């Protein structure tokens, strides 16, 4: 099913090399990571060298070349969140899950990422799990907030 979606995206932009970043973004959003064979296909369909696809995939932070956990856990470490104690929230999450930003836990449940300002500074410190936001969260509330995800 996911492959169909990828095919659809690739067909939509076939031959349009200037849409490379957009194609990779749409596939990343659909599939949550960019497997090597998919990147090969992108290179063929858009007629761009594979090395350029790889360069884009490694340069921009949104792209992942490894599978992600079932939930993407993003902690905002923008300035507003930082002065309100995001670092302590991050440390608590790291201790709890035993992973650092960029890593996925052993049972493939959470992938932890730190993100730049999300533009909702009144919510800080905040944790975003996929599309749900946990606003104005304190380190003490982290364990409870993450309980509902399994």
């Amino acid at each position, binding site marked *: 099913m996911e492959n169909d979606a990828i095919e659809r995206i690739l067909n939509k932009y076939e031959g349009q090399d*200037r849409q490379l*970043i957009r194609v*990779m973004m749409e596939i990343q959003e659909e599939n949550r990571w960019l497997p090597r064979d998919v990147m090969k296909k992108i290179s063929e369909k858009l007629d761009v060298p594979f090395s350029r696809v790889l360069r884009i995939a490694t*340069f921009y932070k949104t792209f992942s070349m490894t599978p992600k956990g079932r939930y993407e856990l993003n902690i905002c470490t923008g300035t507003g969140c930082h*002065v309100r104690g995001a670092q302590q929230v991050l440390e608590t999450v790291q201790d709890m899950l035993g992973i650092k930003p960029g890593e996925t836990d052993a049972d493939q449940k959470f992938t932890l990422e730190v993100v730049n300002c999300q533009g*909702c*500074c*009144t919510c800080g410190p905040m944790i975003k799990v996929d599309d749900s936001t946990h606003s104005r969260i304190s380190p003490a509330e982290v364990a409870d907030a993450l309980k509902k995800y399994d």
Partner: protein
Amino acid sequence: MTRINSVAELEELRTGILSKKDPNRIRISICAGLSCLGLGNGLIIGTFEEEIKKQSLEGKVDVITTGCHGFCEQGPIVVIYPEEICYLKVTPEDVPEIVSQTIVEKKVVDRLVYADPNTGEKAVHMMEIPFYKNQMRNLIGNSPKINPKSIDEYIAMGGYSALAKALYEMTPEQVLGEVKTANLRGRGGGGFPAGSKWETTRNAPNPKKYVIVNAHEGEPGAFMDRALFQGNPHSVLEGLIIGAYAIGAHTGFIYTRHDTHRLRENLDIALEKAREYGLLGENIMGSGFDFDVEVHFDVGIFVSGESSALMRSIEGNAPEPRPKYIRTSVNGIWDRPSNLNNVETWANVPHIIGNGSEWYNNIGTEKSKGTKLVSLSGKVVNSAVVEVPMGTTLREIIYEFGGGIPNGKKLKAIHFGGPMGGTIPESLIDNPLDFDALSKLGASMGAGDMLMMDEDTCIVDMARFFIDFLSGESCGKCTPCREGIRQMLNILTNITQGKGKEGDIELLEELSEVTGEAALCSLGRSVQKPLVSMLRYFRDEFEAHVNEKRCPAHSCKELIASEGV
């Protein structure tokens, strides 16, 4: 399908929309700005829709999701028109009552309206709340009122009249002249006169030119552009088309963030509708002018907001900046003349063309004209988006709109412009919001993002934080930026961990100077700015860390431990 082929047809369409509009129709406007969504407005939108069905009001009431209303701290915000009753901190549990009381019975739900934190005095209507009343909301005033997905609502409010005026009553030279006389300065950070920039691109020999909206907004703490663009996309688009006409560009690009789904959705609809109405594409409004727009996305890196890097990204490459002596207004995308302005700058254009430069020159200070969007964050009571005339004092912004500093703490410093901006101490807050006044203080305005810090915030840690942020964002192309940042980060980390040694501060100053002079692009040349301003005003705090191994704000963990506090 309605294609507008002349000014008369635009006016006809407008009259038609207005005549169909019932001024007494009830409209529930739910803020879908980033903060309100983060505070749970997504759920409230759904609950309203259900409740309207349940109470058999379908078709009798409009429910719209709008752009940011600005008073983020008091979100989720819901405004009921036509009375403009403003409800704050709304929860899904409040929704049935709002519908049965306010919509059906026309009664105000008292506990949800604004109450002054000092006097307790209530304000039922949006424009009675001091936060809104005292602003000058030229650019974002319509955001709570209009459905950003409807081009008709924008047109009903006078939208695209400025474009009609430019295309039919003015030559491109006159449009350019008007923007120059208005002294419109770029809102993205540089404060560079937009008219001069337009002129350079217009006069560049290559006939194929581009115009670009920079909606990257990567500065942490800056969220005004997303508020404006999501809430009123056509106002930015109209400005862009007028600019393209003045410059002689037939292709435009919008470069925005991939992670703001509602903005993306609103923008896609806006472009589609504008094409349908003949406001984009060939022969715009029957004038003979052709122009269309492509949308490109930042996929998560700060440096791609830098103008030349952004252009590389639009070409489909990695966003590595080019040296500054190559001017993008002459050699930009595919080496063709490319004029880039940010969202807020473009949104000013229809106002300038519509009302004239004289009107615009009456707002603001001698050299900074118009209004400015400001986003407040950090240790401030109201995190918010505010629009005020240039020249408003920082004190007014922080205390009148920001509501001061929470928890009885004292304001220590304000930081402007994110990781490439500057910090000024509390003693300077009687200065005006003005490009040049702030630059003189060592804190360029940036995009207008103000971060408040109180006495618990350690300045050395903030300096480390910004450099740490940039260490992950530098593209790595040039040595002064790549290595300079790394060394500055090492030294600052050591200082915050109590491992600072004599000479560190001087070394930081030297590194700052070299990076500032020798780096390739404006990111590299600005990385040291926060640090330099912090050393200028808070040198004693750095010295306390280095010499006495003491953190005056009691914030650096390793130093508190050794203090035994």
